[in-house]
């Protein structure tokens, strides 16, 4: 019984939250990694693209809700999602046209593109706030829990509870599906291979008859889709606040880098690594140990480090991982 | 000068260099040939410290130099050129040469603040030496050109020129001839011979152009599938059945269609 309790505590406070958070980061990192791999720069505007995408999804969700449309036990936002993606893709394509294309034509140094993306970040940042405001919004309807603590306790009779939110399951599921789909797309379809070819050798892609502008458009559309999906799932799970989407950029980049920038598989692994190291390292093991070692009552919390240092710790872990895997988690074949 | 003992370098399961042992005698110009993918460049990279070996040892003048980083080997007198020219493209041709010598006072940051006079003297000396080298290589007219603007063959000359800025003991040349005009290649061959004769450099040369190998090298080492296949004089090698089958071939089959 006690082992069961220990397990439940662990699952409830460490495993499930970290997995969901990891999936959220992973989805964000996928977008960053894709743009890095194919368009060759770190897109600092990605966080704010996520915010913008989510903003449009929220507005559409409200519209749908006003019309009385819902998705049963699933959040209405899922119905709005495709339209949100379409709108975001339009905005992003417009940005490419107005900003990035110029530098591509000029063959400007890629760092200039990075800085241009900072400019875009500022503008989108403002745009999102003008669009939907600075407040916090919850737009999660439908069933919030697949399993909540009370039900679990009643079902199992254990003193410890376990909760699993539908958005958590959704996020993890979607992250994995999206990753597999992206992997399949890039490695098996002609367009995907064309994108990789462009990423590998722009000039030669041209000489093989690949239209580079088509590749770029496709990349942006997929990136916008990823951003909107990531942003919406994150928003559903937590809540939407424009400001937070800039903050999430940092862990997203960490995830993308440690996974090996430009590598979709790495993005996923990196996301989970960052999330688990944040949650697990600062976790006080007192209750788990308490269940496992009967009769032992530790005086402290058995916490390695305070949660204030969680981000710091996760970085140390990332560096250590890189030291032992000097080529990133997934080296070799990238996008 | 260089002794390689049972060297292995594997990439995953693939054995690019698979137990190669060879010696490069002091004062020789040793040729290294072999089919594409035989492991020649990999062997070079392991000797020059760019890649760590999977196993095996490399000795230079009896000293174990396995796995030493390239900059250390440089100071021991082991220089190399790259299969694909590695010039400093945004610097002028002369600067490309002047940066080579180690132990310049001006490379120590605080000396650049307090010892301007000394640095200027050293620079003048370096400039003189660089110009000498440029004369030797017949590219003096390119002194102030950006190295990035040179054509393929001129970059190869510059690669060679850098090895002349200091007193090297042994120089590894990786396919200096690929993509170089044949007339120019013969000039390069002459330059190599002169360095060998006049300055006593030892050379180890990878090349697919048999004329070039024949003119320069003795002995010639043939590699195939990561191992040494044969060693001998250029004439012997060119008659060796195994080498002909694996590497040299017997010429065009479609001769009859030529000029049709």
């Amino acid at each position, binding site marked *: 019984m006690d082992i069961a309790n220990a397990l439940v505590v662990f699952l*409830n*406070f*460490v495993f499930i*939250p*970290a997995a969901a*958070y990891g999936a*959220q*980061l992973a989805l964000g990192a996928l977008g960053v990694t894709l743009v890095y791999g194919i368009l060759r720069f770190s897109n600092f505007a990605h966080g704010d693209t996520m915010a913008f995408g989510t903003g449009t999804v929220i507005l559409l969700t409200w519209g749908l809700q006003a019309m009385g449309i819902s998705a049963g036990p699933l959040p209405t936002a899922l119905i709005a999602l495709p339209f949100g993606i379409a709108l975001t893709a339009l905005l992003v394509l417009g940005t490419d046209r107005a900003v990035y294309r110029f530098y591509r034509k000029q063959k400007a140094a890629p760092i200039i593109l990075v800085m241009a993306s900072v400019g875009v970040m500022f503008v989108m940042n403002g745009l999102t706030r003008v669009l939907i*405001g*600075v*407040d*916090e919004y*919850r737009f999660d309807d439908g069933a919030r829990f697949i399993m*909540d*603590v*009370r039900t679990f306790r009643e079902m199992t009779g254990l003193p410890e*509870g376990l*909760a699993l*939110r539908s958005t958590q399951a959704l996020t993890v599921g979607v992250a994995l599906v999206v990753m597999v789909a992206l992997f399949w797309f890039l490695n098996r379809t002609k367009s995907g291979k064309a994108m990789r070819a462009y990423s590998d050798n722009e000039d030669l892609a041209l000489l093989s008859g690949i239209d580079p502008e088509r590749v770029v458009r496709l990349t942006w559309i997929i990136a916008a889709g990823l951003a909107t999906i990531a942003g919406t799932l*994150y928003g559903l799970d*937590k*809540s939407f*606040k424009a*400001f*937070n989407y800039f*903050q*999430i950029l940092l*862990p997203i980049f960490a995830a993308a880098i440690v996974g090996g920038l430009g590598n979709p598989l790495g993005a996923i692994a990196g996301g989970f690594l960052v*999330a688990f190291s*944040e*949650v697990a390292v*600062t*976790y*006080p*093991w*007192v*209750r788990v140990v308490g269940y496992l070692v009967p009769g032992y009552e530790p005086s402290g*919390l058995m*916490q390695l480090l*305070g*949660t*204030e240092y*969680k*981000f710091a710790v996760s970085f140390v872990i990332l560096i250590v991982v890189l030291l032992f895997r000097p080529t990133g988690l997934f080296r070799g074949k990238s996008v | 000068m260089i002794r390689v003992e049972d060297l292995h370098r594997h990439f995953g399961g693939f054995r690019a260099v698979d137990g190669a042992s060879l010696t490069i005698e002091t004062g020789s110009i040793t040729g290294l040939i072999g089919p594409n993918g035989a492991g020649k460049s990999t062997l070079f990279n392991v000797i020059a410290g760019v890649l760590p070996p999977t196993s095996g040892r490399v000795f230079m003048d009896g000293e174990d130099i396995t796995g030493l980083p390239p900059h250390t080997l440089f100071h021991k007198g082991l220089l190399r050129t790259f299969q694909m020219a590695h010039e400093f493209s945004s610097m002028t041709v002369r600067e490309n040469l002047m940066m080579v010598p180690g132990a310049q006072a001006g490379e120590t940051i605080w000396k650049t603040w307090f010892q301007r006079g000394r640095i200027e003297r050293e620079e003048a000396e370096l400039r003189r030496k660089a110009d000498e080298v440029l004369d030797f290589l017949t590219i003096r007219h390119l002194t102030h050109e950006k190295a990035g603007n040179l054509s393929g063959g001129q970059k190869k000359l510059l690669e060679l020129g850098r090895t002349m800025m200091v007193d090297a003991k042994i120089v590894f040349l990786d396919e200096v001839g690929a993509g170089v005009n044949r007339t120019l290649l013969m000039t390069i061959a002459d330059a190599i011979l002169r360095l060998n004769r006049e300055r006593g450099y030892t050379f180890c040369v990878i090349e697919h152009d048999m004329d070039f190998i024949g003119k320069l090298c003795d002995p010639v080492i043939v590699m195939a599938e990561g191992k040494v296949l044969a060693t001998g004089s250029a004439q012997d090698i060119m008659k060796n059945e195994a080498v002909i089958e694996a590497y040299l071939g017997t010429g065009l089959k479609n001769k009859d269609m030529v000029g049709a």
Partner: protein
Amino acid sequence: EEIKLGISLGFTGPLESMAPDMQQGAELAMKEVSDSGLLLDGSTVTAVTGDSTCIDAAAATATVERLIASEGVKGIIGGMCSGETIASLENVAKANGVVMISPSATSPALSTIEDDGLFFRTSPSDARQGQVMADILSDRGITSVAVTYTNNDYGKGLADSFQAAFEEAGGSVTVNSAHDDGKADYSAEVAALAAAGGEALVVAGYVDQGGSGVVRASLDTGAFETFVFPDGMVGNALESNFGSEIEGSFGQNPAAEGPGRDAYLAMAEEAGFDGTGAFSAEAYDAAALILLAMAKSGSSDPATYKDSIMDVSNAPGEEILPGQLARALEIIAEGGDVDYVGATAVEMVGGGESAGSYREVQITDGKLEVVGYR
């Protein structure tokens, strides 16, 4: 004369959602006074706003510098967050001799700062709130809590003063740990808090920041069911974010019971904004105090009117509520005394900060309900 007052608040940055209601509160008071035409021979009052960003001391300093040097404001309502407030006070306001009244900087450090008599605040020091919160908990018979605070001078100051007071009263704090605002995820924090346990969780954070994130994650994992909310958390967002999920949780924020607050809420509604927004009422009071002090001292020069602020804010005199500023100006013009009560029952103590009366609130049927005042 056209009198300009500066409003320096964090319109962008982590607390950007609080700022507009505060600004509107301050402007409401100025408009009221302007419209009355009774201030210093019919002077008008205009507001000049500046963005203090709340976290960037340099930007805040530059903003206040601009307000004073270029706009020529005679007083400043602001700053918003304690750190930024201290920086602009020490570097700019003191140097130029301009009065600053902050509606919301609650750090205890501001009580003892050397301010040349220029700094006031209409919110109480967190040293006091900690005491009040401890009292509320003791009265409810709760003896063991976990505390999480937003990692800044406000959160830490409040958490520490609360811990001291609560332990003094015999309670125990199982853990007192920080959370950073604006993080993407609070699972780790909540896991740690849950492991430490406690009957309730004290969330000394901001409702539209990490505070909500922590509450959300706690609810989702079933870590805590009852929460204790100090001022940074008591806001409408609490109802809309959580509603009945946090049924039975309680807290307190600086606010006085009674007609002043009601009057203010009505005025705000009429003016089209949310008067219950955190520190909105304090901002109204801050502006009103400056203007009344000007009238009292007969001058818009901060060097002169700074000394009248304590005077108008405290007894003796006729009590003044929001919406009665015209009346107050009349009294002053007649040479009478006023005791400004305003929207938050202003009572200045010590070096010029609100003594602080708090209302105790509780979530009942998903709504914030006032259950008493302290």
